[in-house]
């Protein structure tokens, strides 16, 4: 019982509510609300940016751009959609990938994602959803357990923003094979999330 109660206590519904509330305060110009959201999420956002852009100074720039955008566009965030944390992560990944593409001399928009599109995209889309520690650990283990031929294309897509055709070219593998392997990899990660972690 002791253990069950402990595990059930894991949850960040309170933090999600606080984020939404803070966004509302930002719209009214409350800078403390920005600091609050920053303190709650910067570690994850900075780490994600660093994983993508590799250089700490670039990762700092990405984080600054993201919070600048959040401050300016807090009022445009659709509260009925995913969590604020999910939105922040999506913005961070987009900004970081844009920076990476700029360095590679590629166009920053229209290839895979554009930061502006993530904000105002009225499409069906799917809102990125953050998971708890146990689920993240299972996904990490599942990713590490994937064969290289599945894991590498997935990492190139998610952390380097390469399109499936670009991945096929880089790995000198037919496009159809890359598509199949990426799909298999993602199905495996989804199944890992669904596993019971007691």
């Amino acid at each position, binding site marked *: 019982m002791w253990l069950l109660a402990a595990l059930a206590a894991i949850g960040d519904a309170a933090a999600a509510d606080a984020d939404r509330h803070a966004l509302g305060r930002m719209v009214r110009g409350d800078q403390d609300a920005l600091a609050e959201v920053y303190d709650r999420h910067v570690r994850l956002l900075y780490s994600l940016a660093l994983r993508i852009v590799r250089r700490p100074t670039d990762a*700092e720039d990405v984080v600054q751009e993201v919070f600048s955008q959040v401050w300016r566009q807090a009022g445009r965030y659709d509260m009925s959609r995913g969590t604020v944390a999910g939105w922040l992560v999506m913005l961070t990944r987009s900004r970081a990938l844009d920076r990476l593409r700029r360095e590679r001399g590629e166009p920053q928009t229209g290839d895979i994602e554009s930061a502006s599109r993530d904000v105002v995209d009225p499409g069906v889309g*799917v809102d990125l*959803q953050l998971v708890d520690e*146990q689920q993240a650990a*299972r996904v990490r283990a599942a990713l590490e357990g994937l064969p290289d031929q599945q894991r590498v294309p997935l990492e190139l897509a998610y952390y380097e923003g390469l399109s*499936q*055709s670009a991945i096929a070219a880089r790995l000198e593998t037919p496009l159809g094979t890359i598509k199949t392997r990426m799909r298999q990899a993602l199905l495996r990660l989804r199944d890992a999330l669904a596993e019971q972690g007691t």
Partner: protein
Amino acid sequence: MSTGETDHDALREQLPVYAIGALTGAERAVVESHVRGCTACAAELSRFAPVAGALAQIVPLHDPPAALRARVLASAGGRVIAMPARRALTAWAPWLAAAAMLVVAVGAGGYAGRLREQVRQLEAELRDARARVDDGERRVNVALVALADAQKPLAIMTAPDVRQIDLAGQRVAPRAAARTFWSPSRGVVLMAANLPALSPGRTYQLWFVTPAQAKVSIGLVKPDANGRVTTVVSNAANLPDPAALAVTDEPDGGVPQPTGQMYLVGAAH
């Protein structure tokens, strides 16, 4: 856009990749258009939303530099924070030299007064620059100490039988988090961050919880002023296989069985 059965199947195959934001603009538009009118695909898509999130969350975690906070708040919130940088120093220097010559040439006392004010300002900026250098040196020293400390847990973390168990902060400390490495042959390493300071006379204690709910004390956990700690327990042979790990708040010196609130918990799977 109308899509037939074949299109439906082909597009359904692309949903996972779409969900993690890895389709090109053109590919994405086609998938979005289809999903808007296909409830089956919309439902399938939502099952991949947590995969997209998890991929972001499993990156190695790093703390951003402390100075980033002020920079972000200043730029986003429109607050102007004066940055007395080295640039200011070099920009002032030629002007100062010119002003000095002018003072000599004209002999005007008014200039001398302004000049003294500027010298004071430059001295202040110099002090600030020196403080930054000192701060940089301090950080290097901290890193060197951390490196030396890191050697100890390395033996455990690289053991052939090592297992990783992550602990999540509970209601009392939602921002706290920890990662443990447990090697039955070599011991336990616990690395925690954001642990709140406890009241005087209290200490954190780490427990193994067996599948039969028995709790075995592993040791005391003493975070620094910033709530960070790396605890290494080398004499951990003959420990039971845990179902979970927990960190609780206990009286100083520790107790044989947990009595206080839980701050961190993680299942060992």
